[in-house]
């Protein structure tokens, strides 16, 4: 079998250079039509982008210093700009600011190194088995035991130690992978913590705990929302015996980072980190709404296929996201949550003990090992530098 630590491995050969898209994914044979139109509008687009970046830079301040102040003063401006998409070169930084992960990182110096270097986890083998199967078509993750795969392994292993109840669950790799394309390992780790433990929004860990309690709850809520907002389609689903688990479970488990076009996933993540899981429901509904008239005619097999392969034009973020925002769900979502909880009093207790916000105390209580090593050893500092050498730059933005 495979050995345990990735750092025992020599990196595999660098895969031959192949054409990649602007996010680093190896291109499929057929040319992506949206890619073509991007080129033709290139110059215009570039100027607009530069103006946008300048605005964003002002809003953020140096290294994020003005961010909180700005959010407090002009929340509606922030919301509007985030919904339009965070400039790609500032994404990593802004994601850390809006998710609350930056604060966690600052409150817990040295903790990540500790988790990566000194702790072992029961999930290590599972993680290794999945490493080369996470974004296999992205150049950063393609090289066997290369820097991408190593950081992915480290982040997932660290998380599996940090929260042993969750450990490693298939799907988390796509979250971590997406984050690692925009930030260092340590930053990605804390963002994962912020999400799963609920630094700003409701904790997501219930998506991954035994029994997948939060997946079950979200699917219940989603099914009811479809009935409410798209009653004809809801009825058609019932007749064809389509259960939302058949198409929507991975939407929730990976927040659209799995098998959706990457440029769309990023735009969804911009909003997701700021507004929470509500956007996953809204985007799901918007996809169904956009394709409503086609879907409603399809029989079971074709329906399933269509629900897993939305047409290109449906996945244009500038169409899909405005549509998503226009669907009002928050009130019903809350009611449905209560209804679901009442129905399933016991099984979901842990998942939604929504007060489980993270604090410094909680963090160190989890792993007694940290208390002993308050002054990070020089050795570990060096090793950490090695581990995340490829991504420090993202801290201060990339443009």
């Amino acid at each position, binding site marked *: 079998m495979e050995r345990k630590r990735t750092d025992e491995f020599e990196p595999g050969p660098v895969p031959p250079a192949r054409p990649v898209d602007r996010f680093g994914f190896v291109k499929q044979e057929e040319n992506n039509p949206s890619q073509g139109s991007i080129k033709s509008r290139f110059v215009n687009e570039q100027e607009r982008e530069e103006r946008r970046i300048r605005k964003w830079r002002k809003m953020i301040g140096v290294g994020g210093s003005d961010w909180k102040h700005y959010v407090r003063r002009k929340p509606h401006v922030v919301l509007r700009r985030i919904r339009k998409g965070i400039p790609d070169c500032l994404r990593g930084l802004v994601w850390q600011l809006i998710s609350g992960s930056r604060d966690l990182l600052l409150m817990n110096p040295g903790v990540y190194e500790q988790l990566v270097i000194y702790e072992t986890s029961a999930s290590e083998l599972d993680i290794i088995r999945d490493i080369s199967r996470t974004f296999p078509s992205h150049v950063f993750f393609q090289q066997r035991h290369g820097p991408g795969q190593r950081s992915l392994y480290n982040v997932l292993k660290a998380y599996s130690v940090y929260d042993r109840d969750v450990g490693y669950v298939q799907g988390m790799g796509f979250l971590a992978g997406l984050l690692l394309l925009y930030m260092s390992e340590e930053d990605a780790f804390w963002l994962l913590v912020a999400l799963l433990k609920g630094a700003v929004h409701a904790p997501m860990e219930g998506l991954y705990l035994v029994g997948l309690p939060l997946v079950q709850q979200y699917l219940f809520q989603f099914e009811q929302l479809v009935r409410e907002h798209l009653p004809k389609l809801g009825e058609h689903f019932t007749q064809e015996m389509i259960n939302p688990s058949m198409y929507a479970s991975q939407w929730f488990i990976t927040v659209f980072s799995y098998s959706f076009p990457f440029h769309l996933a990023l735009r969804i993540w911009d909003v997701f980190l700021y507004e929470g899981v509500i956007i996953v429901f809204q985007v799901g509904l918007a996809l169904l709404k956009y394709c409503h008239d086609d879907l409603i005619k399809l029989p*079971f*097999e074709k329906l399933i296929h269509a629900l897993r392969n939305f047409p290109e034009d449906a996945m244009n973020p500038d169409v899909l996201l405005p549509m998503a925002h226009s669907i009002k769900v928050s009130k019903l979502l809350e009611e449905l949550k209560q209804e679901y909880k009442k129905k399933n009093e016991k099984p979901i207790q842990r998942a939604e003990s929504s007060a489980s916000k993270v604090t410094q105390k909680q963090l160190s209580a989890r792993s007694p090992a940290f208390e002993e090593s308050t002054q990070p050893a020089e050795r570990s500092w060096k090793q950490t530098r090695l581990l995340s050498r490829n991504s420090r730059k993202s801290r201060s933005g990339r443009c």
Partner: protein
Amino acid sequence: MARTGNRNIQAKLVLLGDMGTGKTSLVLRFVKGQFFDYQESTIGAAFFTQILSLNEATVKFDIWDTAGQERYHSLAPMYYRGAAAAVIVYDITSMDSFGRAKKWVEELQRQGNPNMVMVLVGNKADLEATRKVVTEEGEQYAKENGMFFMESSAKTAQNVNEIFYEIAKRLAKASPSRPTGMKLHNGTQEGGRRLFCCSG
């Protein structure tokens, strides 16, 4: 499409087995003739269809490929409930995956449709050098449990079509020849659709 005088059988088939044993690879090999060295992990489940024509019938498979990790167990019942056939896959280079396969067999015997055609598949047969589960062990276990057994390789395509042909044959044999338009639903709410539906 169907040959003269043939029956059309529509059958729901589910693949179960530990993560990374090659469920998705087997289906992709069967449905599209493709294989990828780094196949993305399946999150939730994936759906495929494929049609096989035999002399005696044309079988249309609705294939549910499930996520292998133990944690996803709670999602599996809706995919195997009402299935006409189940392919339980282990990796011949991993004893753990064989143990997990046995657990699936037991679960299906308890919960599944009693007439289900069950197949035990030892995949990655091309990795002879690192084999941990000897052929006889798989064979023996399958025999004891009244299952059909095969070792396969999604990578080399060895025995992949054979697995599905054998299932199709057994389904054709088991499915009663009924008059045109006959449909058999087993009526379970989730996933229980279209166990067979036959039209002449």
